[in-house]
């Protein structure tokens, strides 16, 4: 057993603890508080003057899948061509030895949900993983965690040939058609008709049965509204990825209980559909009552700068506690892994960060990152000091 003692702890789901103690055993938190008794056999780690927060949880990432100086040879995010590639599974594209996982540990991100890209109207299965390990299957936190969908510019851009989608309404129609076919496929199976196996429709069925949500890429406010319209029509669970123009229709999204994965942060207005990007988005959504998760969309925001994104969201009006929650517990809940990660509480995985000082200051870099009680990054050991 180890006792991390003396730091200020931000458990996220309870009040901050000054000069607290956190007990860790077998990779789990077994106690946290101010007046916790440290067992005699515990190894004590003195963290006086430091700050401890939960490991960050990034609900929209492509780590291990593309980017990071590897070029076309390792671009494995979008299975093209074809607007419907519901049969693919992100786990089959992820390389645990990719440098981006090291970046996660350096940036304090201990859990990620990895999505296929947004090039296709239906893009494939998402899954959640810890950011440490040699074999991706051993890193899995939960799989699958959703089916990726996409509206707006990206699916149109993929269809350079003769095929749909050529328009936004074309993309919506393809998604409707896909789920209609999945429904029919399910009916046939129920009636014992034994249809030809179809992996794509099987995954569509998982969404229709409520096993996993549809996670829909949408930037522009009309695309976001289309996502809501489609999913309500189909009666499926969903959330909105990016939600860039969300602030324009924040009360509508609050009324619909939409969970917004806002990001990538610190990003340019590079596409027409993100022309109205506004740094206040996360704050305005939260103010309206929308549940906000900040996301990196790595590599679009390098995961090493996830905390810096939190600082910027705060600068534009998101409260300190909402920001911390949007980087930890809210994404854990959105992914469906809040029983394991996202806050510092007994019974949860010992995934935590030791910071040099108060979160979000440039003077408070991540000193150590722990996953299940194991230190997986140390600033002191880093090349160049």
């Amino acid at each position: 057993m180890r006792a991390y003692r003396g730091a200020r702890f931000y458990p996220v789901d309870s009040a901050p603890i000054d000069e607290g103690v956190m007990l860790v055993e077998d990779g789990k938190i077994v106690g946290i508080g101010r007046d916790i008794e440290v067992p005699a056999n515990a190894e004590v780690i003195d963290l006086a003057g430091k700050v401890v927060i939960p490991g960050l949880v990034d609900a929209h990432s492509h780590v291990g899948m593309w980017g990071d100086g590897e070029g076309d040879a390792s671009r494995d995010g979008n299975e093209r061509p074809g607007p419907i590639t519901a049969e693919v599974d992100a786990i089959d594209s992820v390389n645990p030895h990719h440098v981006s996982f090291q970046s996660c540990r350096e940036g304090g991100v201990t859990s990620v949900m990895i999505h296929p890209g947004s090039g296709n109207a239906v893009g494939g299965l998402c899954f959640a993983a810890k950011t440490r390990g040699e074999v991706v299957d051993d890193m899995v936190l939960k799989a699958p965690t959703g089916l990726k969908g996409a509206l707006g510019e990206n699916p149109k851009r993929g269809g350079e040939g003769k095929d749909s989608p050529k328009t936004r309404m074309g993309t919506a129609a393809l998604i409707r058609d896909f789920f209609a076919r999945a429904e029919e496929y399910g009916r046939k199976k129920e009636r014992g008709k034994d249809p030809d196996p179809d992996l794509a429709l099987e995954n569509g069925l998982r969404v229709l049965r409520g096993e996993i949500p549809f996670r829909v890429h949408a930037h522009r406010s009309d695309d976001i509204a289309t996502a809501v319209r489609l999913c309500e029509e189909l009666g499926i669970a969903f959330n909105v990825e990016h939600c860039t123009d969300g602030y324009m229709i924040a009360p509508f999204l609050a009324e619909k209980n939409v969970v917004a994965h806002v990001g990538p942060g610190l990003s340019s207005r590079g596409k027409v559909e993100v022309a109205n990007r506004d740094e206040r988005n996360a704050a305005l959504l939260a103010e309206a009552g929308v549940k906000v998760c900040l996301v990196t969309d790595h590599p679009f925001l390098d995961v090493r700068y996830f905390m810096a994104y939190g600082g910027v969201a705060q600068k534009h009006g998101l409260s300190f506690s909402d920001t911390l929650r949007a980087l930890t517990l809210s994404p854990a809940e959105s992914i469906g892994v809040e029983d394991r990660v996202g806050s510092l509480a007994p019974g949860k995985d010992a995934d935590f960060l030791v910071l040099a000082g108060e979160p979000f200051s440039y003077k408070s870099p991540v000193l150590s990152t722990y996953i299940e009680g194991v230190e997986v990054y140390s600033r002191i050991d880093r090349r160049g000091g």
Partner: protein
Amino acid sequence: MLAIRNALIHTGTGETISGGSILMRDGRILDVGGGLDIPSEADILDAAGAYLTPGLVEAHGHVGLADEGVGWEGDDVNERVDPVTPHVSALDGINPRDRGFEDFLAGGITSVQIKPGSANVLGGSTVAAKTGMQATADRMIINPNTGMKAALGENPKRAHGAEHNRAPYTRMGSAAIMRDWLFRAREYLKKREQKDPKVGYDAKLEALLPVVRGEVPLRIHCHRADDMLTAIRIAEELDVLYTLEHATAGFKIAGYLAARGVRCAVGPSMSREAKVELEGVGFETAAAFEKHGVPYCLTTDHPVVRAMYLHMIAGKASAAGVGDEGALASVTLRAAEHVGIADRVGSLETGKDADMVIWNGDPLDGRSTPRAVIIDGEIVHRGR
């Protein structure tokens, strides 16, 4: 006349004045210091102890050329028909109404060097401009020709090369094109001076004359250490002025660069590693350059990283080992020196342009924001 008093002044030259004042008139700084007498006719702005810094300088950006959120219609960064387009000038592509300029003011940046992109080996003239929006780009200009954009590495190969069936296909191909055109420009200069009747006007060679005359530097895009060394090799061979732009892998050859005093604009350090040549991007190079004494500045390459984060990037560099003083210098005076406009901007000194920022917190903290941005003695932007 405008006076700001009761400020925590970072002059940009390494000096910090607590409770300081600064006096400006007709767009210039009259005086800066601790116990200044403020003339009765001056308008007085009380900073209430807030940080006051020089207006930041972005040494490498594409604002105005890459109209944001517009698509191809607003994209005027690269004239990609030919790897050699020295005859184009960024000045002719700048849209002074690009929303990107708002990002600069929101980040406390008052001067920027605007460059054509890096698709071409010789890409066109660069300019230095103020960031306060004016009716025409010409009115924003500090210097209409601060250098000649050049590029090595992946980009020229990708924009031309195998896919387009024209040179350069390789790194050595790009180097040969650069060398060839500089030799030709040198020859052209000689013959023009001799008034050789057989040599007529050539727009491309004409545009390279300021380079071969030693009046302006080549601004050479290079990320990988070997590309940086190729840039130095060619520039030394041809005896032309040069700066290195990006210098991503600079930490690998920091000693070599320091020994030659090579000016480097480092960044964008927070960008995604989208290309192979960006392997290792981060803050290691800034830290190594600070340690070895390489004359460097930090850049966002806006819009690759939005300019409003330049001050936060400086904070990140500080935490990575650069230190607060070096970090601030790398986005003010050293950036101005990189661009060649340090006689006008980059520090708060008597006689310089009255470009400055009052911040609502530590300027190196990403959560801070400008309370007021002043260009040429006028408040052009107010924040919270």
